[in-house]
């Protein structure tokens, strides 16, 4: 690779790949050849930039110009104007919601300003398929330091002092986990990585593996050195094909460079790493089920203790951490435990990656210091709620988590605060809801998910989640009673206490937290037989206001159920027995004569 004057970075993450970034990359190469620029400009496929809603993302360096939503047809203009003549293509620049004019550079956006990218440090910067680029950004430097300058105890000491806690959901102190695994006396130990990211809406682990897979490989080696293991496994779901492929390339390149294998950096430390594909069962994200699945057994949890640190994979002491947890490790070694501990709150150190989704302008991935408030995430980084709607609540932690209502929007997000308000940080999924979301319906959605994903081994979870779902169903169709709400609460408590693993123990959380903060919505469904948000179809009625209806017949022509009748220029009527509540008539009516109640 010779000196080039400009680098064009195109996102090759899953989000942008879905919006055709491979074609954009190919078109850039074609245009560079046509303009005879191939020698001086390079196009580089990177991992995720985080702003997935605006993909494909293209960033041109050295200026750092930030283009969004680039189509194949736009490429020629960028090459002929910007790359050749140095004139920015204004119309393609990223435009920030609510801001005047265009934003030229990525780092100037509200979306990036408040972020601190540690786990995502290489994503959107390096080409994940070239180990040399990872090395340029300090890849494998931390491993070299650990192997040649630090003792096993010192490494564990650094991780402990950093205050890093498990990013997979439970928030267990990582240093302590390493200490337990190191203390187990057995010549054979294993290091595993949990990349079975299953929460609906969470995709930070995928992004790390797609954008900077070497950071995870390096961290697993550091962990193996610290606890005394020689073999590692990455358990990743087969639904992440791009991540799997980049991981394979990264492992091959690391082996070629001798960063994996025997006598790494000339020391007596040897380590080998293999990938195990999961078939995408949610329960396999639970540690004992995951280890059973690696062994080739059915992915079912088992009671703990013994904990994996004592008796894990193949009956041997095993260290299991999540992808994002690992991704922090090399940074901590390179920058020191103090630098990491200086970020965040008293008990929750460092940063956390959140996947923003739902009713929010900037859908995507953000990494922010622990203790950032939900308001900052939603209003500043997330760009607010589209269509002028009002914030109602945010659901965090997916099916294991709960919701945060508007009244608690200024709570600093960390492990302790989240637990105290009845939610969890979890893996970092953050779904924003506005006034059009029905909280009972949300709880029902998550219970539907856990009911499907329950492995069936223990009855509290297998039968309990189904019963809870049934009751929610009953409430949303308007047949619920106040006794049902009481029964629901009783079931929640019982299942929480008696389920075998985390899946069942946390499954009631979406119900408990919506009951806590939005009990009035449940009661509206039960007592008034009304859905305040207008979501639950069985509790809705569409009506035509005779005084506003001009009799234009637009509604009766679009009604798919032929439920609307009336004479021309006379008020129309909806036959409630036929109406399927699709809402098409409301969109068609020019006189605002049709209402939902």
């Amino acid at each position, binding site marked *: 690779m010779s*000196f080039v004057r400009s*680098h064009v970075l195109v996102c090759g993450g899953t989000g942008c790949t879905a919006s055709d970034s491979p074609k954009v990359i190919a078109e850039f190469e074609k245009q560079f050849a046509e303009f005879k620029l191939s*020698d*001086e400009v390079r196009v580089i496929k990177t991992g995720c930039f985080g702003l997935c809603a605006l993909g494909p993302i293209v960033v041109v*360096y*050295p200026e750092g110009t930030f283009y969004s939503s680039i189509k194949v047809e736009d490429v020629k203009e960028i090459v002929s104007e910007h790359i050749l003549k140095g004139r920015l293509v204004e119309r393609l620049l990223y435009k920030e919601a609510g801001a005047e004019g265009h934003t030229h550079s990525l780092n100037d956006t509200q979306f990036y300003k408040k972020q601190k990218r540690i786990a995502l440090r290489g994503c959107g910067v390096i080409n994940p398929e070239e180990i040399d680029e990872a090395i*340029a950004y300090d890849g494998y430097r931390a491993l070299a330091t650990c192997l040649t300058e630090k003792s096993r105890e010192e490494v564990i000491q650094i991780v402990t002092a950093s205050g890093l806690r498990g990013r997979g959901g439970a928030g267990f102190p990582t240093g302590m986990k390493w200490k337990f695994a190191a203390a187990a006396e057995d010549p054979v130990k294993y290091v595993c990585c949990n990349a079975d990211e299953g929460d609906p809406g969470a995709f930070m682990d995928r992004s790390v593996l797609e954008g900077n897979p070497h950071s995870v490989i390096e961290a697993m080696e550091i962990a193996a050195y610290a606890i005394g293991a020689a073999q590692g496994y990455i358990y990743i779901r087969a639904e992440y094909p791009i991540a799997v492929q980049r991981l394979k390339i990264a492992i091959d390149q690391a082996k070629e460079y*001798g960063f994996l294998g025997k006598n790494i*950096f000339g020391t007596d430390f040897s380590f080998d790493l293999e990938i195990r594909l999961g078939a995408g069962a949610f329960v396999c994200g639970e540690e004992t089920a995951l280890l059973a699945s690696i062994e080739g057994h059915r992915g079912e949890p088992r009671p703990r203790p013994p904990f994996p640190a004592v008796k894990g994979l193949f009956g041997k002491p095993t260290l299991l951490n999540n992808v994002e947890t690992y991704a922090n490790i090399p940074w901590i070694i390179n920058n020191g435990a103090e630098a990491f501990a200086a970020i965040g709150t008293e008990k929750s150190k460092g940063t956390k990656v959140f996947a923003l989704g739902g009713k929010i302008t900037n859908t995507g991935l953000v990494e922010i210091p622990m203790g950032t408030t939900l308001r900052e995430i939603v209003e500043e980084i997330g760009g607010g709620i589209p269509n002028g709607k009002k914030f109602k609540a945010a659901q965090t932690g997916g099916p294991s988590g709960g919701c945060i209502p508007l009244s608690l929007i200024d709570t600093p997000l960390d492990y302790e605060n989240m637990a105290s308000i009845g939610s969890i940080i979890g893996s970092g999924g953050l779904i924003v809801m506005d006034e059009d979301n029905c909280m009972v319906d949300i709880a029902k959605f998550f219970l539907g998910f856990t009911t499907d994903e329950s492995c069936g081994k223990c009855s509290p979870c297998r039968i309990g989640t189904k019963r809870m779902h049934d009751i929610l169903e009953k409430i949303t169709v308007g047949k619920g009673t106040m006794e049902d709400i009481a029964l629901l609460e009783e079931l929640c408590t019982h299942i929480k206490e008696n389920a075998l693993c985390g899946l069942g123990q946390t499954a009631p959380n979406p119900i408990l937290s919506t009951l806590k903060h939005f009990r009035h919505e449940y009661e509206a469904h039960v007592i008034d037989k009304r859905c305040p948000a207008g979501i639950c179809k069985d509790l809705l009625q569409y009506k035509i206001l005779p005084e506003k209806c001009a009799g234009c017949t637009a509604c009766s022509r679009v009604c798919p159920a032929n439920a609307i009748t009336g004479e021309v220029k006379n008020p129309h009527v909806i036959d409630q027995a036929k109406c399927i509540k699709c809402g098409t008539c409301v969109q068609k009516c020019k006189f605002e004569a049709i209402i939902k109640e």
Partner: protein
Amino acid sequence: MKSLEDLKKIREEMQQKINIRTGDENRTRVVVGMATCGIAAGARPVLAALVDEVSRRKLQQVTVTQTGCIGVCRLEPIIEVLEPGKEKVTYVKVTEEKVKKIVSEHLANGRVVEEYTIGAAE
């Protein structure tokens, strides 16, 4: 098998190649006028020569970039050298030959080539 030294070497070599992706305030920027007037006057080969020379001399602190019309089209090709904390230097009617001297004198050794500057031309 890579040793610690190899790792360090790769890191240093690669950093030079990708350092244009880091927004370092202390870099020298060399800007080439690449509007229609510049291109017509021969800015393309000038830019190519500039990139070659900078690369040959491994000048890590130099970014070569391009810009639009600077406004004095009759003096194109124009290149400007912007060093942090120093006054901007504008070279006019630049050729591939002049580029070699500008790089070796100004960019590598910090001596402005007065005879090629806009002051000397006017």
